[in-house]
């Protein structure tokens, strides 16, 4: 302030007014400048504290009132300063630099001004102002003289220093500046400092000159034409006598500047990011008042809530006009952050721009100096992702529900419930194609009235409207603004946008899925993607259902066929495991094994153990492609003897490859029975034919034999005239005729026995025997035979005719083969009852029968005697007749001794006798 003339004048004026001590006392007391007022005798009137301090440093005096100023100066200084004071006392203002020597011999310089103070036109006081100028003098001297020590400091100091003269031309630079700028001292000497500056603030140089401690940033050029260097400059003025220097100290801030720029850039980028982010960001203070919000948030506030963002508004102001949000959820989370100081995360559905929007929210506490100062809020619109997740979830729900669906109607409702109902739509429906019309089948939204009901039938012609044209082309369509689409016609409400996806089997459209939203541009790719997938799954499922339905029908028919046959069917796989079977097979196995068969059972466990090896063999044959058939007889506890025909048939697939074996079990008991019957009948027939042949032959012979005999005798009669001889011939003729007659009777008996039904009636045996004996009375030798009778049962129920044949043949046989050589020839007839049998014994002492002939005795036309008297039919008839009565016959004989026949006939039971024995 030394050079501030205004201050000096003011001060002078103040002193003149006698108020020196009052107004400026405070300033004078604190300033680091010497103020001393002297009277005309150069005695101190006033010295400020700084002056007093200086006085102490120069001498042992401290310049109190009344002290001589000159007393504190050394001799040399006193000599120099006294003339100046005297001059001032004469009214001349003096200034200059005074060199003094201090108490400790140091050299001090003071720059001073002596101003005369006038009172009543006379100088009667002086004001001495002085400042310690030692440093400046010191530096000045060294700048000029290039003092070695200073020079070294100057050159080695790290700060770049540049010294300018009064005209701002470079006087000196130090080493550091050379390094910074790349110039040599010579290149710069005499150059104006302004030429070095590329950029700086206005009045930079003046500021450096006059504002102490002022710093200014500027860009200097360097020796490199493209080079530049950021510096922060601070200046210091130096006065030395007439000359002034500006010492500028430069700090290289290039690096700092670079960092600063980068920082600024990233800050700009960050704020741009924040503003343009699709995230909605805002922050609130602890009173839940808005602090800031990004552009996205401000925009959504306006569009969705009709709220103009204003910092300082309360969060509730946001919902002032429109409040379609879960306010409770929001507020509880805000409060939770305020209470706990911890972040909160939640998600909810909002209605941004009037359409379904799903958002996730992050609330983070803001801490300032360790204290909760607010909440930052970050909202992300993840509707697409949410929809995608939700729809994918719905899709998988739908797929799993579709999996178990067996009717097309259920399937379409599954699409409706699991997919269409989750699309947040006003209307969605499925229409199916029939001929050239699409008919609504299911719907969600305005057309749905119940669980599986729609309120009105809707039909659209194929090709008409968006829906119809999708059905016609088979290509999905999204109409973002239905009011501008010519194909659109209003179905039930004024839709905003629409999506229609065809359901196709192969290339043929069988139906369409139609979704409508009242908002424009509602449908996104995800909708198309999901609906097409749904349509695909639906069509596959429909194909499957139709195929299954057909298959089921075929299966039902097959099963009906299988179950309607009386045969058991079992299908075995190649591992001999049961794959399938029909009802009969099930029942058969249950009956025989007492076991309920199930799929997967091993065939070997199902069959009788004794058949296993054989059946396994057949199974393997069948597996190699051969048809095997086996007949088995089984005993069943309930059904008795059964015949089973088991067929092992190779089971082939569509490619004619054997994959298993079909086993067909046939109960052939009945056919086996009839087969056996036929075999038996055939045997009977064969026997009958054989017998018939033999019979005819024998009959023809036996009948013709007497005839031919008679014819021969007749010839003999023709050859003789002798009456005795003729009479003899006549006897022979009669004998032959008798033979013939007897034979004819036998034949009749035979015929009767085999043809006539049994007829039981009361028989009297004695009467019967009487008649028989009468018939035999004319037989040769009869008269010499004694007949013995022992009849113990005379009257009983029997087939009289047959009983007669039996007794007659027995007697006839005994008579025929009597032994004429024996003296007492006899036949004894015995008839007794044994239990329920009547036993007839006829015993003779005739010729007897060779043992070897006994077995053939009862065969037709067999005669055991060389000189046979019969045709050999009698005993045969006897046997047959006994058989007819279910009786038994036995014979015992000894050649030459005699024969005994025993016939045992069952007596019929008293009641229903006819039926019992008639059933044969």
């Amino acid at each position: 302030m030394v050079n501030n003339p205004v201050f000096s004048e003011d001060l002078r004026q103040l002193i003149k007014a006698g108020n020196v001590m009052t107004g400026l006392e405070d300033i004078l007391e604190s300033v680091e400048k010497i103020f001393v007022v002297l009277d005309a005798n150069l005695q101190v009137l006033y010295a400020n504290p700084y002056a007093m301090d200086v006085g102490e440093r120069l001498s042992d005096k401290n310049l109190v009132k009344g002290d001589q100023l000159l007393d504190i100066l050394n001799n040399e200084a006193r000599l120099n300063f006294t003339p100046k004071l005297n001059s001032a006392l004469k009214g001349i203002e003096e200034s200059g630099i005074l060199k003094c020597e201090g108490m400790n011999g140091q050299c001090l310089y003071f720059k001073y001004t002596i101003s005369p103070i006038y009172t009543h036109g006379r100088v009667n006081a002086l004001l001495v102002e002085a400042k310690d100028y030692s440093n400046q003098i010191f530096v000045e001297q060294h700048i000029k003289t290039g003092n070695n020590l200073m020079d070294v400091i100057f050159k080695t100091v790290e700060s770049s220093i540049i010294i300018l003269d009064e005209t701002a031309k470079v006087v000196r630079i130090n080493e550091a500046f050379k390094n910074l700028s790349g110039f040599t001292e010579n290149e710069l000497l005499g150059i104006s400092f302004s030429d070095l500056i590329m950029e700086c603030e206005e009045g930079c140089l003046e500021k450096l000159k006059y504002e102490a401690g002022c710093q200014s940033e500027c860009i200097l050029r360097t020796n490199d034409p493209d080079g530049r260097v950021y510096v922060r400059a601070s200046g210091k003025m130096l006065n030395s006598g007439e000359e002034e220097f500006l010492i500028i100290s430069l700090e290289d801030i290039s690096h700092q500047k670079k960092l600063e720029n980068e920082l600024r850039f990233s800050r700009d980028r960050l704020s741009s990011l924040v503003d343009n982010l699709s995230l909605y960001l805002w922050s609130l203070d602890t009173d839940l008042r808005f602090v800031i919000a990004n552009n996205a948030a401000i925009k959504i506030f306006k569009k969705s809530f009709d709220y103009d963002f204003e910092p300082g508004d309360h969060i509730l102001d946001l919902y002032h006009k429109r409040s379609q949000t879960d306010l409770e959820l929001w507020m509880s989370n805000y409060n939770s952050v305020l209470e706990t100081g911890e972040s909160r995360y939640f998600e909810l559905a909002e209605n941004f721009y009037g359409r379904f929007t799903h958002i996730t929210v992050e609330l983070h506490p803001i801490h300032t100096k360790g204290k909760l100062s607010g909440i930052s809020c970050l909202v992300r619109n993840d509707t697409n992702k949410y929809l995608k997740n939700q729809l994918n979830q719905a899709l998988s729900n739908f797929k799993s529900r579709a999996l178990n669906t067996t009717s097309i109607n259920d399937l379409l409702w599954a699409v409706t419930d699991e997919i269409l109902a989750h699309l947040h739509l006003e209307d969605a429906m499925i229409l199916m194609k029939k001929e050239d019309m699409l008919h609504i089948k299911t719907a969600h939204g305005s057309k749905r009235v119940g669980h599986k009901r729609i309120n009105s039938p809707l039909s659209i012609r194929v090709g008409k409207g968006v829906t119809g044209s999708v059905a016609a082309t088979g290509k999905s369509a999204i109409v973002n603004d239905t009011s501008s689409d010519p194909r659109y016609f209003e179905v039930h409400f004024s839709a905003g946008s629409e999506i229609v996806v065809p359901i196709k089997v192969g290339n043929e459209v069988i139906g369409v899925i139609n979704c409508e939203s009242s908002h424009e541009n509602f449908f996104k790719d995800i909708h198309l993607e999901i609906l097409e997938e749904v349509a695909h799954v639906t069509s596959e499922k429909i194909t499957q259902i139709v195929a299954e339905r057909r298959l089921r029908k075929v299966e039902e028919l097959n099963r009906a066929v299988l179950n309607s046959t009386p045969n058991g069917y079992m299908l075995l796989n190649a591992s001999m495991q049961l794959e399938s079977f029909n009802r009969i097979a099930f029942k058969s196995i249950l009956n025989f094994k007492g076991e309920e068969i199930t799929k997967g059972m091993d065939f070997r466990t199902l069959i009788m153990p004794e058949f296993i090896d054989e059946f396994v063999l057949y199974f393997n044959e069948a597996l190699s492609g051969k048809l095997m058939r086996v007949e088995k007889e089984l005993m069943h506890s309930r059904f008795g003897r059964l015949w089973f025909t088991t067929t092992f048939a190779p089971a082939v697939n569509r490619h004619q490859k054997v994959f298993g074996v079909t086993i067909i079990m046939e109960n052939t008991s009945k056919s086996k029975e009839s087969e056996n019957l036929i075999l038996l009948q055939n045997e009977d027939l064969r026997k009958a034919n054989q017998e018939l042949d033999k019979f005819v032959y024998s009959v023809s012979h036996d009948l013709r034999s007497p005839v031919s005999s008679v014819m021969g005798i007749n010839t003999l009669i023709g050859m003789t005239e002798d009456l005795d001889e003729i009479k003899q011939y006549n006897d022979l003729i009669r004998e032959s005729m008798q033979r013939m007659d007897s034979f004819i009777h036998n034949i009749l008996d035979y015929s009767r026995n085999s043809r006539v039904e049994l007829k039981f009636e009361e028989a009297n045996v004695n009467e019967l025997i009487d008649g028989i004996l009468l018939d035999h009375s004319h037989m040769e030798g009869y008269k010499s035979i004694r007949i013995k009778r022992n009849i113990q049962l005379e009257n009983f129920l029997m087939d009289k005719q047959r009983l007669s044949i039996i007794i007659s043949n027995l007697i006839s046989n005994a008579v025929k083969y009597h032994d004429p050589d024996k003296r007492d020839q006899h036949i004894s007839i015995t008839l007794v009852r044994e239990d329920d049998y009547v036993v007839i014994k006829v015993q003779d002492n005739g010729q007897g029968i060779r043992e070897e002939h006994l077995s053939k005795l009862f065969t037709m036309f067999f005669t055991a005697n060389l000189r046979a008297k019969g045709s050999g039919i009698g005993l045969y008839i006897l046997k047959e007749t006994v058989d007819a009565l279910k009786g038994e016959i036995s014979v015992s004989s000894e050649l030459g001794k005699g024969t005994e026949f025993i016939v045992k006939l069952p007596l019929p039971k008293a009641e229903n006798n006819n039926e019992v024995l008639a059933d044969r």
Partner: protein
Amino acid sequence: MKYLLIDDNPIDLLVNEKVILNISSSNEVIKKQSGPEAIDYLKENRNSLPDVILLDIKMPLMSGFEFLEALEHQEVSLLKKMRVYMVSSSIDPLDLQRSEENPFVSSFLEKPLRKSILEDEFK
């Protein structure tokens, strides 16, 4: 000529003997009522064998053909020395066929024997 008649029916034996003797009273007739008896006779008379055998087919225990078989086995040389005629009242064509096939049988004659046929055969 010596004839051996084999027949179980004595009436037929008598009738046939008369017919043969009626052709020529010089004819000698031997009658046997069964095959075994005839074989016994032939064996006993192998030096004065009959020229002709009239053999009944149907006889008990041993039929005419069985007789031939038995004789063939026992004394085929004897059999070869005689002319054998099968005689039967049978009209069974099987008998005729068997007669024709048997190498020892000269012919089949039907009962009753007729004089004219015998005269033609045994001239």
